[in-house]
């Protein structure tokens, strides 16, 4: 049981928890924020699996641009904070 194994187990549990929260949270903006966090944690997973190219791409696109698109869609329709 090395340090890397422990980090892997912690990341796995956090990823599943965040996915569950993103699907079942009450407001849409919280759901989007949990999705962004999940994307950032998956970057750590890619780094642990020795895939730096994929990690860079996912860090820029998954947790940056996609989150901005989601947030601006929610802002444009003025449904911030309302129930899903």
């Amino acid at each position, binding site marked *: 049981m090395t340090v890397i194994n422990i980090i892997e187990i912690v990341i796995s549990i956090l990823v599943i928890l965040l996915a569950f929260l993103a699907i079942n949270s009450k407001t849409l903006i919280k759901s989007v924020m949990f999705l962004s966090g999940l994307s950032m944690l998956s970057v750590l997973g890619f780094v642990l699996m020795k895939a*730096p*190219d994929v*990690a*860079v*791409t996912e*860090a*820029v*696109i998954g947790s*940056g*641009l996609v989150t*901005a*698109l989601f947030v*601006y*869609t929610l*802002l*444009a329709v003025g449904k911030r904070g309302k129930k899903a």
Partner: protein
Amino acid sequence: MKNFLALALSLFIGFLIIMSLRNNVAFPEYGTVNVASRVSQAYLDRDVTENPGTVIFGESVNLESGPANTVTAIVADYRSFDTLGEVTVLFVSSLGVALLLGTKKQKRLEVDFHPNFMLRVGSRALFGIILMTGIYVAIHGHLTPGGGFPGGAMIASSMLLLYLANDSFRAKIKGFKILESAAGSAYILIGLIGLLVGGYFLQNVLDNGTLGSLFSAGFIPIIYVLIGLKVGSEISGVIDNFLTEEGV
């Protein structure tokens, strides 16, 4: 009842995937892969068509595929036709967004947030740094992790920063459209040069150089810079479509 059916279906599919992982040829256990038995070993050894012997960083000259980053060698050289199709998919999706959201008279989206002076000036300074990082990542795609796709996305996020920091800013979208179509056409033109000179579509006809130097790998840095420009201008156009609305 519907939820129960959905749960049962999801559990069944997960069970199916886990059962197929029971240490067969296609899916060995996590971490026990034998890469030498896969086609990827040929990409690592660069002996798909030739037999160069041992590949050494900084010494091997004129390999069949020049980049030191093997992932780039697969994306932009061995499977470059795949990447051309993928860039086309991105083009079609940005076209769909422009058809759905682009209207004649556009103004900036009105949100309840007005940036102050410090934010405007600070983001101007950050804009240059992020843009330079994006260009660096795109140019060094054949040596370091990264490449055209993350580089283009970084260029697009620098544009997003300008949009966020100034609520009356509009980029010149017409220039982005010209840049995008020029980069896409140049990619196909490079493929046609390969077809005419080398005999295959997207064949690399330039000198491959020493493994690991900046001016090496023939067409691949050019292709990756073109992909970076195309992805960057496309995603900037998508961002502009999302941040504008109908109005005068």
